[in-house]
């Protein structure tokens, strides 16, 4: 205690030093404020100048590039390409290169067939492709991700294996982008990585991959069986999405096995896939699981009955409507409507206790 008091006394006696500390702090703060103000002005001015310059160059280049893409005269085209290449080789003038890349990329996204090929060809002939490769290898993760996306947009198929290297990259965003672009450039081969994938694929990434798949000219996905039996739950989920959206009826047996899966989300999705594929014959197998399922899954089974069932299921549904759970009663009564038992529901609703009757009346209101 005495030591502490001594410490305070000593500190207090050095009053001049206190002034020094405060003055120093004040000086530093004022200096930092000044620097920050300069930075604000500089950022704004530079941004304005760069934007204006970029717009000006872009307008000029737009006509040149359009003319190259749709040029019928080969000699003239060669000349134009030479000019463009020379412009891009000027290492000090990156603005022109960036503007051209932006124009080409926008065009590639809007074009198809020969016109798209003409855009891709410009990348090859003006050495932009080499530049992309160099940046892909040397630059930071954000540039890598952007370059990979650009390669995909321009459809530089010869760079497939370069992009493939990044499908397992340490930075998630680069990895995710590479997985989609590989699919874009290489088709189904691009999904090979799923067969052995250990890390989880996020829901977002699954959607990206699925969106890309929907653009491919396939209707058979022989690998879904492998994915559906994967030990990686996220791969199973992705497999289920593919099975659903590409009507993979041949996966029926795998789907039945998944009804016993320990992951609730997988079981839920499996039942949805059954419904989506209209596998009426399998409904009894789904119903067998009903007693062992959680309420969330029971609701999903009831939805499936509504879609796949027929009037013979009405006793099962009426039994479910006696439940005390709101969601089960609501879904069972909705399914009664879907299997064409509206009149029966009207007739029997008053025989239910008040709580269940109110829920049934809710389901009967067609405006909901």
């Amino acid at each position: 205690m005495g030591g502490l008091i001594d410490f305070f006394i000593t500190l207090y006696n050095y009053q001049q030093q206190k002034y020094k500390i405060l003055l120093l702090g004040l000086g530093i703060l004022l200096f930092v404020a000044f620097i920050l103000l300069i930075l604000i002005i500089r950022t704004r001015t530079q941004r304005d100048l760069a934007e204006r310059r970029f717009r000006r160059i872009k307008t000029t280049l737009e006509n040149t590039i359009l003319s190259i893409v749709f040029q019928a005269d080969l000699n003239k085209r060669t000349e134009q390409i030479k000019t463009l290449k020379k412009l891009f080789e000027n290492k000090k003038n990156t603005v022109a290169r960036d503007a051209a890349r932006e124009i080409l990329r926008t065009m590639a996204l809007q074009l198809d067939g020969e016109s798209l090929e003409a855009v891709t060809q410009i990348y090859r002939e003006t050495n932009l492709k080499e530049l992309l490769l160099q940046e892909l290898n040397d630059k930071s993760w954000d540039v890598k991700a952007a370059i990979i996306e650009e390669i995909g947009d321009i459809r530089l198929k010869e760079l497939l294996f370069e992009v493939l290297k990044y499908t397992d990259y340490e930075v998630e965003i680069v990895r995710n982008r590479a997985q989609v672009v590989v699919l874009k450039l290489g088709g189904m081969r691009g999904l090979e990585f799923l067969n052995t994938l250990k890390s989880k694929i996020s829901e977002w990434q699954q959607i990206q991959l699925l969106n890309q798949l929907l653009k491919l000219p396939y209707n058979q996905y022989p690998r879904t069986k492998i994915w559906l039996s994967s030990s990686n739950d996220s791969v199973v989920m992705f497999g289920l999405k593919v099975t659903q959206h590409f009507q993979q009826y041949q996966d029926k047996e795998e789907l039945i096995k998944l009804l016993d899966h320990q992951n609730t989300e997988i079981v839920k999705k499996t039942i949805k896939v059954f419904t989506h594929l209209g596998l009426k014959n399998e409904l009894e197998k789904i119903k067998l699981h009903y007693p062992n399922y959680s309420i969330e899954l029971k609701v999903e089974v009831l939805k499936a009955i509504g879609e796949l069932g027929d009037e013979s299921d009405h006793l099962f549904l009426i039994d479910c409507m006696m439940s005390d759970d709101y969601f089960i009663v609501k879904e069972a009564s909705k399914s009664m409507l879907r299997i064409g038992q509206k009149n029966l529901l009207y007739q029997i609703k008053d025989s239910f206790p008040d709580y269940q009757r109110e829920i049934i009346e809710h389901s009967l209101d067609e405006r909901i």
Partner: protein
Amino acid sequence: MKEFDTTLSGLDIFLGVLNILIYLFTLSVMLSYLIIALLSLWYAFKHLKASKSINYLSILQSPEAPSISIVAPAYNESKTIIQNIRSLLSLDYGNYEVIIVNDGSTDTTLENAIEAYELEPVRYISPNNLKTQPIKAIYRSKNPALKNLLVIDKENGGKADALNAGINCANGDYIMNIDVDCILERDCLLKMIQPILDEPERLAIASGGVVRVANDCIIDKGVIKKVNVPKNLLARFQTLEYLRAFLLGRVAWQYLDGMLLISGALGIFNKKIMIAAGGYSTKTVGEDLEISVRMRKYCRENGIKYKVHFVPEPLVWTEVPEKLGQLLRQRNRWTRGSIETILAHKNLFFNPRYKFLGLIAYPYWVFYEWFAPLLEFFGLLTLFILLILGLLPGLYIALFLLTVVSFAIVFTITTIYAEESTYFQYKDAKGIRKLILAGLIEPVSYHFLVVWASLKGNWDYFIEGKVTWGKQVRKGFDRDTIDREKKILVSNTSGKLTPIN
């Protein structure tokens, strides 16, 4: 100046200790702000780089997009309700519903909505997972194009109660709570849901977004067309405050997994976890803070590996109070909400079971959000007394205060720089100059109002036992109301919502 020698009085020791404590607390505040600001800047730039590669539209086209229920409580919003519902119905997202909860409004909020959207009562029974005040009626539109709109009319029970009623009727997997009078960016749902879906390892239980000040912005058909710095000085100070809190605060806390508050103006939550945690508490006026803390706590206690996200982009615009009375009432309420949450979850305090939440985030909130204004007030009071008594030299106090004020100014300028380098919402150079000037006078003017409101909040909570929300007055963004249109400055294409007096 009093000289000290070896014979010390009790007062001398007290002054010495006090001096050191003031120093240490001030330094710790500055240091923590600095660390948080640097982390925020780092993360904001990282997010900016990453978001360039994110194709948000992919979820818009996807059949796998999760369903979202937007729950917007409305109390006496007759001026704005039509425009606000329209704005909510025009968001860029495929799979969502809008639930408006009329919380016993005493004006024509419900009637206006019924008339504008052709609403009719339906037989709607909700699961009542969360207890609420009685529901009077539930409405749907006769227009099939508005099938994703649901309007609940209920007895008044406060914002939390209204939110709970909305959650009971929600069909979505996720609940987005918003203040009905806010203006959402059209791609807000896409940006809010993206980090939740892009979480492979942990369960993303919630996501917050940046709230910006909409006063004097040009708004057309519920969309922000031009961002302006508010003309009203109080609103301008609040603009700086919001920028600091969101741009240089919550971003870092999210990164450290310690973000306690998801603003009531905009937040998206996992419905299952929200209901399991018990929904919004009706016992607090700070329900937004309380639910965030409770959901985190619930996950920790149940061994759920969770994550709370924050999108550092401006996603929602809100009208801030322009009158002193309204501002003081609002801040008073925020303080009481904070105290209620802190006391309701006091077992988190330095509790290692809750890891970062218990050891850092919660104590930080206690010391720097709750205690800081109190300590500041009593610190200033003590310095003033010491000055009067001649126990501390005026020059020393002036220098000390000047240093603190300078730090506040530097922090504000850093925020403006961060805004300039990241989201660049204030395109007008004149606007930025106004903000900088406001930043220079804020620490010696507006700041004291906030401290006062906080003190009053503490007084009201502990001495008066006040629990109500307090009256709120909205200027309104509604351009449809004819008599308002007459008073609104109209540019070529859009109306600027500044009434001419």
